[in-house]
């Protein structure tokens, strides 16, 4: 090797080393974006093994709840709640469509925001999951034994049901408070048809308290409280010492009705509204307040027949702040606060300052002292305003930009999302000092720690619900699933473990140890307990009945045939109800029902249940139907025909399986 070659080799080698060093330094600075070295081990759930937590995420504008497993991030199921599901017939079948009734008529979609477990002694008990519709004020109850929506209650005298449906320590009440103030009918307001510019004079808000039956979870609107026409944003019941109180944030104490981004962002302080719900409930039950007319729908699945029914309600009890002296207070909070969270000990209340650079932390003990001293700085609509300094324990500084929500690990720390600076910030509840922070991708809205909003956080994980996805996954056109990020918070430092995309745009999530929910799951419905009025329990009971222009087809489905599978005698102008009972009694053997030309929906029928779909034929002919859920090796053979004849034909009703119709 010549001297020149040696020099050249050294030179090239040097460049190679420099490039390698650059690459490594590039990697290490990029490390937090990629994840931790052993992250894969921590989120890997081997084939056939289960996740340790269920995570229930609202879908936002999907109107549903999506269920994921943690730590794997696997999508387990989607629970249809406020949105019709034409694939399984939810909201289309005769059994489920009543769930969608409102005073406005049938509403096929919703905007879910805040899933909330039922609680016992301030701890999530996994019996029911409640969730709000922000758009048409409603609260739904999901049964966590079946992962089905069993009840939807509409709320009158309100709009923008955002601060909803948070639960009190023993699920005595759910809350709902108006985000979008509206004019109200007399006697609450001056009528509903008023100029928008008369907002300050005519627009009103209410805080609703929905009572939950402790045995079966059924909801009842117990009373409402009139509150000033601000935009109430989020709420939380107290815990432990503060459990008799409920706290709501508001923005727009400016009472703007147009260009709110400017006009509702003028004041330096907005408010936290604190209400002693326990005492208010006692007063309401003594008969205080006024019973007013209001029309709203209560939709409930009858547990015996499994058929949803609507009850139209006409009355609600409404109380005014003047009825409730000493039970309602405003606490000032920096500029347009968003989230509000009560620490697991129940001692502190923390907001997301949103347009402020601090997180204010109020002390419940200080609030009680200020109330005792009657140390107020004025009042709004008869609700006294406490002094900011008197009630504030500390302001957490250096929390990043756009703090929105807090959650708690049960070990003395809070974690806040900062939307604008796109990070999670960990702070000490007692001292108010920031101790750690971690970038998120991108712009987290809510965050959720298992049990973080209860007296007993299970901790370990933190889920950041990011609002902006951009380049985190393979692109899917202009719209993409929202991106969630899972962190390990078991140590001092936040460790990023996993990114995973989720349906819709979750606005909050609830996690619970899998063992609390998985053991009680319903695997199929017992046929002997099926009391649907159109059930067909045995094949020999299958029949087709004409009553004038109405035809009821009582059909059974079992691997791999329908009974009957040949039907004649349907005529143009008939209204046909097809009632299919899946007579299997086995786990995970649903049957589907699809009929050519069916404008309504397909159906999935779980073992032991009956589902009915309405059909008004528009064409003469023979229409095939078949099973849509691959049930068995002979699933393709699970099919049949229905003949539709002209209105004036004399074809009689005949039906059967495995024989020629005569």
């Amino acid at each position, binding site marked *: 090797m010549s001297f020149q070659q040696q020099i050249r080799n050294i030179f090239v080698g040097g460049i190679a080393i420099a490039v390698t060093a650059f690459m490594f330094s590039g990697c290490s600075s990029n490390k937090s974006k990629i994840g931790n070295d052993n992250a894969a081990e921590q989120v890997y759930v081997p084939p056939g093994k289960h996740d340790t937590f269920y995570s229930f995420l609202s879908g936002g504008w999907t109107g549903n709840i999506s269920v994921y497993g943690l730590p794997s991030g696997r999508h387990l199921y989607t629970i249809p709640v406020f949105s019709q599901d034409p694939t399984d017939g939810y909201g289309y079948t005769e059994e489920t469509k009543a769930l969608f009734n409102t005073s406005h008529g049938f509403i096929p979609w919703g905007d879910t925001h805040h899933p909330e477990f039922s609680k016992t002694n301030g701890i999530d008990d996994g019996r029911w999951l409640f969730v709000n519709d922000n758009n048409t004020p409603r609260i739904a109850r999901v049964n966590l034994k079946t992962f089905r929506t069993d009840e939807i209650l509409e709320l009158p005298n309100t709009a923008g049901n955002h601060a909803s449906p948070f639960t009190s320590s023993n699920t005595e009440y759910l809350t709902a408070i108006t985000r979008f103030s509206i004019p109200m009918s007399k006697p609450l307001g001056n009528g509903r048809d008023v100029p928008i510019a008369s907002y300050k004079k005519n627009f009103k808000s209410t805080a609703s308290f929905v009572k939950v039956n402790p045995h079966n979870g059924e909801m009842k609107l117990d009373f409402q409280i009139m509150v000033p026409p601000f935009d109430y944003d989020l709420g939380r019941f107290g815990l432990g010492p503060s459990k008799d109180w409920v706290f709501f944030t508001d923005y727009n104490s400016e009472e703007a009705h147009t260009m709110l981004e400017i006009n509702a962002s003028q004041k330096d302080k907005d408010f936290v509204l604190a209400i002693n719900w326990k005492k208010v409930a006692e007063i309401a039950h003594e008969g205080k307040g006024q019973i007013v007319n209001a029309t709203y729908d209560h939709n409930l699945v009858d547990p015996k027949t499994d058929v949803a029914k609507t009850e139209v309600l006409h009355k609600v009890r409404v109380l005014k702040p003047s009825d409730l002296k000493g039970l309602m207070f405003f606490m000032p909070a920096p500029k347009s606060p968003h989230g509000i969270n009560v620490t697991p000990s129940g001692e502190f209340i923390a907001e997301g300052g949103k347009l402020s650079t601090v997180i204010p932390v109020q002390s419940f003990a200080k609030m009680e002292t200020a109330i005792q001293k009657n140390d107020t700085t004025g009042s709004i609509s008869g609700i006294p305003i406490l002094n900011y300094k008197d009630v504030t324990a500390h302001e957490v500084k250096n929390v990043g930009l756009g703090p929105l929500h807090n959650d708690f690990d049960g070990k003395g720390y809070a974690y806040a999302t900062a939307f604008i600076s796109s990070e999670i910030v960990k702070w000490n509840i007692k001292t108010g000092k920031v101790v750690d922070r971690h970038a998120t991708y991108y712009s987290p809205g809510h965050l959720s720690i298992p049990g973080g909003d209860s007296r007993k956080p299970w901790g370990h994980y933190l889920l950041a619900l990011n609002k902006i996805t951009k380049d985190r996954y393979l692109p899917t056109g202009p719209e993409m699933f929202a991106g969630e990020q899972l962190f390990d918070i078991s140590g001092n430092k936040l460790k990023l473990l996993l990114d995973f995309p989720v349906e819709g745009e979750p606005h909050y999530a609830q996690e619970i140890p899998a063992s609390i929910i998985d053991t009680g799951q319903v695997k199929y419905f017992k046929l002997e307990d099926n009391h649907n009025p159109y059930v067909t329990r045995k094949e020999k009971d299958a029949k087709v009945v004409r009553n004038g222009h109405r035809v009821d087809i009582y059909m059974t489905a*079992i*691997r791999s045939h329908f009974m009957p599978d040949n039907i004649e005698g349907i005529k143009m102008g008939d209204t046909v109800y097809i009632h299919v009972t899946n007579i*299997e*009694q*086995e*786990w995970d053997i649903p049957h589907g029902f699809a009929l050519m030309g069916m404008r309504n929906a397909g159906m999935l029928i779980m073992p032991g249940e009956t589902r009915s779909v309405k059909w008004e034929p528009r064409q003469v002919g023979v229409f095939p139907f078949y099973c849509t859920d691959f049930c*068995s090796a*002979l699933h393709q*053979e699970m099919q049949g025909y229905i003949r539709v004849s002209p209105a004036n034909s004399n074809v009689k009703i005949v039906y059967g399986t495995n024989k020629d119709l005569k």
Partner: protein
Amino acid sequence: MTKKHRILITIASVMLLAVFVFPLWQIRLQAPQYPEGLGLNIWINNVQSLHPHNIQTINDLNHYIGMKAITPNVIPELKIMPYLIILLFVMGITTSLIGKRSLLMGWLMLFVGMAGAGLVDFYKWEYNYGHNLNPNAAIKVPGMSYQPPLLGTKQLLNIRATSIPYIGALAIGLALVIGGYVFYKEKYNSPKYRVVS
């Protein structure tokens, strides 16, 4: 018969009643899509699902290969067998009360005969169940029959069938062993062979 032997025969007779408390036989079925398992408990007077609704599921699956549905209330043996067990019990108690060796021999012979007949009948039922197939069945595998094993494990298409005697049958077996032991002892320890003290 010695006092000890009469007590033993009483115990053996009472043990027969275990068949009214525990199943005789258990057939367990495993298949890839049934991780939770399927099974049947065969009682002296009934055939029951091991897990809820297993009989219906097994009948659902078996109709594809043309096997007859299991309908416990049309199986005649299940109606007769309880009376035979009660007969054996009453005879056993009578034997122990009277204490005559001839009675013991009669009881034991009947017992052996009935146990043998029971097993043969069970085998025949299984044979018929596995071989007597509907000629119009959807799935026909040439040369294949589906007789479950009397004892042990057998692979039948996708299903692995395991058949084992359960507590009821084990109690009968033990009662038979006790009976045999007493009979043996009585025969060889009889006064013919020893001096009466």
